[in-house]
C-alpha cells in the first residue's frame, strides 16, 4: 500500500505501518520497515516525526531481519538522528552479524557514524595523526617506530604520515572546508582542535563495534567486507589495521567490476600505510584477464608499496608487462618504473639502465609511426628517465649523454622535446656535457627546419639557456648559432615560433648586436635589465617544478565518491567527532568542551555569550534594597521520610530569599530513627543558628510517598545576610572617557516589568564624573532593525521568537534627566525588550545635545523570572522534560574556597563547610540569574570533607512565553578543593536552554577567577 504514492492516503498508511511495526510476525514488521522510506519520500513534513518514531521502534527489534530493513529505513530517512542509535547501540552491535547482508552494509556505516559522533576518534587509529602533525614530531616518531617494529626494519617514511593526515582529514571535512583549507594552509586543523579522541582500548562502544564487525570481514558479500574494512580502517588501532588486508585482497578474486572498486580503495590505503600491503605485493601482479583500469590501478599500488626486498621481483614483472600487447599498459608500466626508482633511490641506476635498454630497443624498430602505442611507451620512458635524473643530475651524467646521442634516432616530437629540454637544463652538469654542447646545438640548428612546432620552440628555449651559462670560447659559437636560429625562426610558417623568435630577439638585442664576447662584457651594465629578466625566465624553472602539492581529495572508504573522485550528491563526510548530543549525563560530566562542539550555531552563540561578562563592573554593590534581618528560633516542621541513607535539606527561596537549612528540625513520622546523626545535626543547627535565621514552617507539604528522608528545615535566612552576597553584577554602558565624563552603568534587576512580561528591567546609574553640569541626558532606542544586521550572521539564525513577535518598543522611553551635577549619580529603571538573548542592543545616549552610540548587552540570566515551587512539583516537571530537553555541562567551582579556609581554623564544626558551599553557590547563582531556589539536597552519609552529592535546584520560567526552565546544580569533590559542579537545565526551548546553561557555567567558572 505504501507503494501507492498518494499524499492523500499517507496518514492512513502511516497508521497501518505503525500497527504493523508492532505485529508479532517478523515478516510483517520487516515489510513495515521497508514501507517507511516510501512514505518518507512523499515529503510530508507532518508525518516525519512519526516515521522517525517508528524507525526507532523497529531498530529496537529483536529479529535481525527487521533490524536490517530498519537500518535501511534509518539511512534514508534520518541518517543524523543519532539518539535513535544511541538508545539501541549495544543491541544493534550484537545483532549485526545476523542481519541480512544488505542491511549489514548500511548498518555498519550508521554505527560508524554514530561512534565517531558520540565518542570521537580513536587515539591509536590512523585518524589520530591529525593531531600529531601539529603537536609534536615525537608522536610521529612513535608511529614510525611501530611501523618499523611491525615489519622488521622496513625504513620508516615520514611522508606517509603526512598523507595519512591528509586522508583522514578529508574523511571528516566537508567540501567547503576543503576549499578553504587549500586557500589557507595555516588555518588547517584549527577546526579539528576540538576533536576529541577516545582510546579504543578503554572505550567499550568502540571496542564493541570493532568486535562485531571483525567477523564480517569473512562475509561472502564483498560490499559487507569493504564496509567492515572501512570501519577498521578508521576506528581500529594502527597495529590492528592489518586485519583488513587479507579480506580485501580476497575480494580481488571476485568479479571484475568489484575488483576495480576494491582496488580503488586499496590504492588509498596503500598510499597512506604502505607497510600494510608490503608482504602481499604478489597479489597485485597483473593478470591478462584484468581490465585496463584494474591493471593501471595495480601498477600504481605496486609502485607505492614496493620495498627494497621486493623490488627485484617487481621489476621482473614489469619487464614482462612491457612486452604486453596492450601498449597503453606498457607505457603505464614504464611510468611505474619511474615512480619506483624515485621511491627507492638505490634502484635508480638499475631502472635507468633498463629504461635506456628499452629505448634502444624501441629505436631499433623503425615502425614508430605505425602505432601510437609505441610512441607512448617511448615518451613515457623518457619522462621516467627525466624524473629520475632530476633527483640527482650529477650521478646520471652518462645517461644524459646517451640520451643526447640517441637524439638523432628518436623521431617522436614529444620525446625529442624532452631530451632537448634536458640539454638546456643540465648544460652545466658534469665535465663532458659542456664540451658536447656546441655539437649538440649545431646538430639542432641543422635539423631545425624539419622539426615539429613544439620542438622548434624548445630548441629556441634551450639555446638561450645554454647561452646564459656558456663561457669562454663557446660563447661566440653559441651566439652565432642563436642568431642563426632566430633568423630561421622568424621566417617560420608557424606564428608561435615567429613570435617567440621576435621576443627573444628583443631581449637579446644587445647581445646580438655586439656579437663579440668582449663587447658583451663591456656593455654589461646597460643590459642588466633584460639579462635579469631572461635569467628569471629560464633559470628559475627547476625550482618551480620542484614540489608538486598533493591535491588529491580522499573520500570515505567504500563510498561512491571515492571511485568517481568527486563528492556524489548525498555524500557526507564523517560527522564531527563528538558532535552528537547525548542525553547521557555521565558523558557530559566528562567534558566541558563537548558541548561547545555541539552545533555550529550553539557554539557560535555560546562563545558570544561568554564574551559579555568581560565588562563586568568594578563595583559590587549591595542590591539596593534594604531588608531587615529577622531572627527566629528554629522549629520543627512535619516531615515525611523513611530511609536514613540520604537526607535532604530543603532550601526554599522566594524573591525574598529564604534559605532553609538542614537542621534539628527533623522529625521522623514513620518512626525510623535518625539517631545516627544527632551530633551532626546538632552541630549544623548550632551553626545554622548563627548565620541562618528565621524559620519557615511547613514550607513544603509532606509526602508519604517519598522514600528519601526529607529533612525539612526552617531556618529562614535573613535577607540582609544573603544580601551581602547576592550582588547583581553591574556592567558599564558608557565609559567616562568616551562620554565626556558621563559614566553610565547598569545592572539587571530581578524586578518584573509592569508594562509587559517581555521587558527586562535594568537599573541604570548615570554618574557625572566631569567637572561640569550635564543636561538632557536620555537614552533612546536607535533604529531597532539595525541591531540584527550588526550581529554576526550565523547568530541571526538562532534569534529567538522575541524578535519577530511583538510590536512593543525596544526601549520604554526613559524619564529624561534634565541636569546632572558633577559627582552626582542618578538612578533610572530601564525597561528594555531585547531582540535576542545574546546579541547586544544598540542604543543612543543623548547628552548635552550630543549623541553617543552605546551597546546594551543582554544577560540571559535575566530573561527568566523566578517561579516559586516546591520540591515535588520540581521533580515532576523535571521528569516531563527529559531527553532532548535536558542539557548538562560541568565546570569547576572554586568560589567557596576562601571562605572554607577561613572557617577551618575558626572552629571544629567541619560540617558547616557544606553550608559555605551551598551559600556561595546559591549566592553566585542568584546574583547572576533571576531564579528561585527550590531546594538544597545534602548527603548525610557523606564522608568528612566530601561534598559530593550536594545538589541545588532552581526554578524559573522564560519571560515572554512562560516556558518553565529548571536548573539543577550538582556538586562533586572535596570541600577544601575546587569542586566539580555539573549544571543541568531542563527547558523546552532548546536553544534558550543551552544558552542559559552556557551562561550559568560561564559565571560559575568566571567568578572563581575574580575572587
Amino acid at each position, binding site marked *: 500500500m505504501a507503494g501507492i504514492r498518494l499524499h492523500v492516503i499517507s496518514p492512513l498508511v502511516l497508521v497501518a505501518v505503525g500497527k504493523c511495526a508492532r505485529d508479532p510476525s517478523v515478516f510483517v514488521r520487516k515489510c513495515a520497515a521497508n514501507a517507511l522510506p516510501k512514505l518518507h519520500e512523499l515529503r510530508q513534513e507532518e508525518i516525519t516525526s512519526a516515521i522517525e518514531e517508528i524507525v526507532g521502534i523497529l531498530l529496537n527489534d529483536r529479529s535481525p531481519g527487521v533490524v536490517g530493513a530498519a537500518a535501511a529505513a534509518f539511512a534514508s530517512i534520518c541518517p543524523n538522528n543519532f539518539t535513535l542509535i544511541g538508545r539501541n547501540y549495544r543491541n544493534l552491535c550484537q545483532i549485526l552479524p545476523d542481519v541480512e547482508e*544488505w542491511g549489514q552494509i548500511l548498518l555498519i556505516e550508521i554505527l560508524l557514524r554514530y561512534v565517531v559522533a558520540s565518542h570521537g576518534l580513536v587515539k591509536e587509529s590512523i585518524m589520530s595523526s591529525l593531531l600529531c602533525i601539529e603537536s609534536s614530531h615525537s608522536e610521529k616518531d612513535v608511529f614510525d617506530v611501530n611501523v618499523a617494529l611491525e615489519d622488521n626494519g622496513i625504513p620508516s617514511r615520514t611522508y606517509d604520515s603526512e598523507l595519512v593526515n591528509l586522508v583522514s582529514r578529508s574523511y571528516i571535512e566537508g567540501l567547503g572546508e576543503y576549499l578553504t583549507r587549500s586557500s589557507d594552509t595555516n588555518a588547517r586543523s584549527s577546526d579539528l582542535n576540538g576533536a576529541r579522541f577516545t582510546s579504543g582500548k578503554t572505550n567499550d562502544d568502540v571496542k564493541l563495534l570493532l568486535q562485531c564487525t571483525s567477523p564480517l570481514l569473512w562475509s561472502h558479500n564483498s560490499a559487507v567486507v569493504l564496509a567492515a574494512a572501512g570501519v577498521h580502517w578508521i576506528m581500529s588501532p594502527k597495529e590492528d589495521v592489518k586485519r583488513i588486508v587479507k579480506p580485501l585482497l580476497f575480494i580481488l578474486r571476485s568479479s571484475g567490476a568489484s575488483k576495480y572498486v576494491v582496488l580503488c580503495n586499496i590504492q588509498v590505503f596503500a598510499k597512506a600505510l604502505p607497510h600494510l600491503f608490503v608482504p602481499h605485493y604478489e597479489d597485485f601482479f597483473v593478470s591478462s584477464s584484468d581490465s585496463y*583500469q584494474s591493471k593501471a590501478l595495480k601498477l600504481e599500488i605496486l609502485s607505492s608499496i614496493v620495498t627494497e626486498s621486493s623490488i627485484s621481483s617487481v621489476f621482473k614483472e614489469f619487464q614482462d608487462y612491457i612486452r604486453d600487447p596492450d601498449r597503453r599498459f606498457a607505457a603505464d608500466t614504464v611510468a611505474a618504473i619511474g615512480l619506483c626508482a624515485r621511491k627507492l633511490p638505490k634502484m635508480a641506476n638499475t631502472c635507468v639502465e633498463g629504461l635506456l635498454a628499452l629505448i634502444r630497443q624501441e629505436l631499433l624498430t623503425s615502425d614508430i609511426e605505425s602505432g601510437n602505442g609505441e610512441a607512448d611507451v617511448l615518451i613515457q620512458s623518457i619522462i621516467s628517465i627525466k624524473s629520475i635524473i632530476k633527483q640527482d643530475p650529477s650521478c646520471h651524467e652518462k645517461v644524459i649523454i646517451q640520451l643526447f646521442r640517441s637524439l638523432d634516432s628518436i623521431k617522436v616530437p614529444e620525446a625529442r622535446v624532452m631530451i632537448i629540454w634536458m640539454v638546456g637544463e643540465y648544460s652545466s652538469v658534469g665535465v663532458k656535457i659542456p664540451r658536447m654542447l656546441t655539437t649538440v646545438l649545431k646538430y639542432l640548428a641543422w635539423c631545425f627546419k624539419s622539426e615539429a612546432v613544439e620542438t622548434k620552440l624548445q630548441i629556441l628555449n634551450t639555446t638561450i639557456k645554454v647561452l646564459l651559462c656558456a663561457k669562454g670560447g663557446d660563447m661566440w659559437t653559441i651566439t652565432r648559432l642563436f642568431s642563426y636560429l632566430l633568423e630561421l625562426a622568424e621566417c617560420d610558417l608557424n606564428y608561435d615560433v615567429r613570435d617567440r623568435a621576435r621576443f627573444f630577439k628583443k631581449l637579446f638585442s644587445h647581445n646580438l648586436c655586439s656579437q663579440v664576447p668582449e663587447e658583451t662584457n663591456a656593455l654589461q651594465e646597460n643590459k642588466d635589465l633584460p639579462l635579469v629578466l631572461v635569467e628569471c625566465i629560464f633559470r628559475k624553472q627547476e625550482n618551480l617544478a620542484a614540489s608538486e602539492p598533493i591535491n588529491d581529495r580522499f573520500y570515505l572508504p567504500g563510498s561512491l*565518491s571515492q571511485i568517481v573522485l568527486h563528492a*556524489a550528491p548525498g555524500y557526507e563526510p564523517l560527522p564531527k567527532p563528538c558532535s552528537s548530543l547525548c542525553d547521557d549525563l555521565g558523558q557530559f560530566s566528562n567534558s566541558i568542551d563537548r558541548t561547545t562542539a555541539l552545533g555550529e550555531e550553539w557554539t557560535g552563540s555560546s562563545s558570544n555569550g561568554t564574551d559579555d561578562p568581560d565588562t563586568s563592573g568594578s563595583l559590587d554593590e549591595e542590591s539596593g534594597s534594604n531588608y531587615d534581618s529577622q531572627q527566629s528560633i528554629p522549629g520543627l516542621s512535619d516531615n515525611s521520610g523513611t530511609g536514613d541513607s540520604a537526607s535532604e535539606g530543603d532550601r526554599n527561596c522566594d524573591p525574598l530569599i529564604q534559605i532553609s537549612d538542614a537542621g534539628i528540625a527533623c522529625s521522623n513520622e514513620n518512626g525510623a530513627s535518625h539517631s545516627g546523626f544527632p551530633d551532626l545535626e546538632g552541630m549544623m543547627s548550632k551553626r545554622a543558628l548563627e548565620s541562618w535565621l528565621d524559620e519557615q514552617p511547613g514550607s513544603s507539604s509532606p509526602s508519604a510517598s517519598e522514600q528519601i528522608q526529607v529533612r525539612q528545615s526552617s531556618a529562614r535566612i535573613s535577607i540582609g545576610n544573603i544580601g551581602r552576597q547576592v550582588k547583581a553584577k553591574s556592567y558599564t554602558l558608557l565609559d567616562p572617557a568616551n562620554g565626556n565624563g558621563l559614566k553610565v552603568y547598569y545592572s539587571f534587576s530581578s524586578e518584573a516589568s509592569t508594562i509587559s512580561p517581555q521587558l527586562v528591567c535594568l537599573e541604570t546609574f548615570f554618574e557625572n564624573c566631569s567637572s561640569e553640569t550635564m543636561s538632557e541626558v536620555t537614552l533612546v532606542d536607535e533604529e531597532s532593525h539595525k541591531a540584527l544586521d550588526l550581529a554576526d550572521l550565523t547568530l541571526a539564525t538562532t534569534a529567538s521568537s522575541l524578535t519577530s513577535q511583538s510590536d512593543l518598543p525596544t526601549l520604554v522611553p526613559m524619564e529624561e534627566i534634565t541636569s546632572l551635577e558633577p559627582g552626582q549619580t542618578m538612578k533610572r529603571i530601564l525597561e528594555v525588550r531585547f531582540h535576542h538573548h545574546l546579541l547586544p542592543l544598540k542604543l543612543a545616549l543623548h547628552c548635552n545635545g550630543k549623541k553617543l552610540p552605546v551597546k546594551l548587552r543582554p544577560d540571559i540570566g535575566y530573561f527568566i523570572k523566578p517561579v516559586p515551587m516546591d520540591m515535588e512539583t520540581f521533580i515532576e516537571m523535571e521528569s516531563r522534560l527529559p531527553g532532548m530537553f535536558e542539557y548538562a555541562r560541568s565546570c569547576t567551582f572554586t568560589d567557596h574556597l576562601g571562605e572554607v579556609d577561613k572557617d577551618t581554623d575558626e572552629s571544629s564544626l567541619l560540617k558547616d563547610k557544606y553550608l559555605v558551599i551551598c551559600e556561595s553557590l546559591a549566592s553566585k547563582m542568584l546574583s547572576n540569574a533571576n531564579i528561585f531556589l527550590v531546594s538544597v539536597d545534602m548527603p548525610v552519609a557523606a564522608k568528612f570533607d566530601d561534598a559530593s552529592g550536594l545538589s541545588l535546584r532552581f526554578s524559573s520560567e522564560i519571560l515572554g512565553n512562560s516556558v518553565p526552565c529548571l536548573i539543577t546544580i550538582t556538586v562533586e569533590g572535596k570541600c577544601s578543593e575546587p569542586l566539580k559542579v555539573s549544571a543541568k537545565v531542563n527547558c523546552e526551548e532548546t536553544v534558550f536552554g543551552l544558552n542559559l546553561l552556557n551562561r550559568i557555567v560561564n559565571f560559575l567558572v568566571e567568578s572563581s577567577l575574580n575572587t
Partner: protein
Amino acid sequence: MLFLKSMPVIASPTHYIFQIVRAGITFLACTQVEMPPLMGIEFLCRVADILSDYLGELNEDLIKDNFVIVYELLDEMIDNGFPLTTEPNILREMIAPPNIVSKMLSVVTGNSSNVSDILPGATASCVPWRPTDVKYANNEVYVDLVEEMDAIINRDGVLVKCEIYGEVQVNCLLSGLPDLTLSFANPSILHDVRFHPCVRFRPWESHQILSFVPPDGQFKLMSYRVKKLKSTPIYVKPQLTSDAGTCRISVMVGIRNDPGKTIDSIILQFQLPPCILSADLTSNHGTVNVLSNKICTWSIGRIPKDKAPSLSGTMVLETGLETLRVFPTFQVEFRIMGVALSGLQIDKLDLQNVPNRLYKGFRAVTRAGEYEVRS
C-alpha cells in the same frame, strides 16, 4: 565508448551507473546519490547468478523468452531501491523455476503467473535461509571441494605466483532443521576465508570449525584461499622466435607433478598480438582453432602417455616489422577430478537433529583459474 564499456562505475552528469557484463549481457544499475558502489555491483552479480540459475544459462534469447519470470524475480529481489530477497533457495520457493510442466500448465489454464501464493516459511523463522518444513525420503548431504588454481609463470619459466581459490559447496538434502559441523584436518593452510551467512563465527574463531544450519539444496558454504603453492600440475613451455618478418612459435605441454589423477580438458588459449597478419599453426595432439579476432585456442584434452603434445607454426608479421616485440600470454585451462591441489582435507562432518538413515558424500575437483604463462 569502448573506454566506457569497460568501466564498472560510470559517472554521468546526472546519474552514476554501475555495470557488470556477464555472458555478453550488460546489467546496469543506476543511482543519483551516494551509496556503496560495491553494494550495487554485488547485487547485479547476484541478479546475474540467479537468472542463470533459473534459466539454466544466460543469453539474450533466454531472457526474452522468460521475460515474465525475469520480471517477477527482479520484483522480489529489489524493492524501492533496496535489495529484498536475494537468497536463491527462498526465491525458488516463491517463484517456481520454469519447467515443462509449468509451461504446459500455463498454456492450459491461461494462468501465466508462477508466483506462489503462500509466504515462504523461512522469512518468519530465525534462520531466514532455510525453509522450516523440509522433508526428504532419503537424507543426503554432499560436500564438494571445488578449487581453482591461479598461477603466473613469467617469461623465464619461473613460477611467480601460485595460489588456490577454493570453495566448499554443499548440497544438502536433509529433513528438519539439521545442525552440521564440518572440520578440516589442516585448517592452518587456509590463508583467508569467507563464509555463507549461515556459518557461525564463534566456533571458527576459536576452533576453526564450521558450524552451521544449512540452507536447503545446493549452496556455497565457504570460499578460501591458499597461497604460495610451490608447484603446478602441468607445464607449458612456449617459445617464440622472430626473424625477418616471420615468427616461429612452438609450445610444449606436459605433466610436471603427477597429481595421481588424470588431468583432462586441457585447453590453451592465447591472443595473437595485433601485429601478426596471419598464422599457420599445427599440433601433434588435439585441435587448433584461430578465430577472426586473433584468439587462438588449442584444445588438448588429456595428455597422452606416449608423447608430449606440442604446437608449432609460423606467423607472418606486419610488413615493415622485423621482429616481434610484444608477446602473447597463454591462458591454460585444465581439470583434475578427485584432487584438491591445495591439500585441504575434510576431517569429519557431524550432524545433529537428523534422522539416522543418512548418506554423506565428499568430492573434490581442481580446475585452472587464472593460470597464465607468459612468453
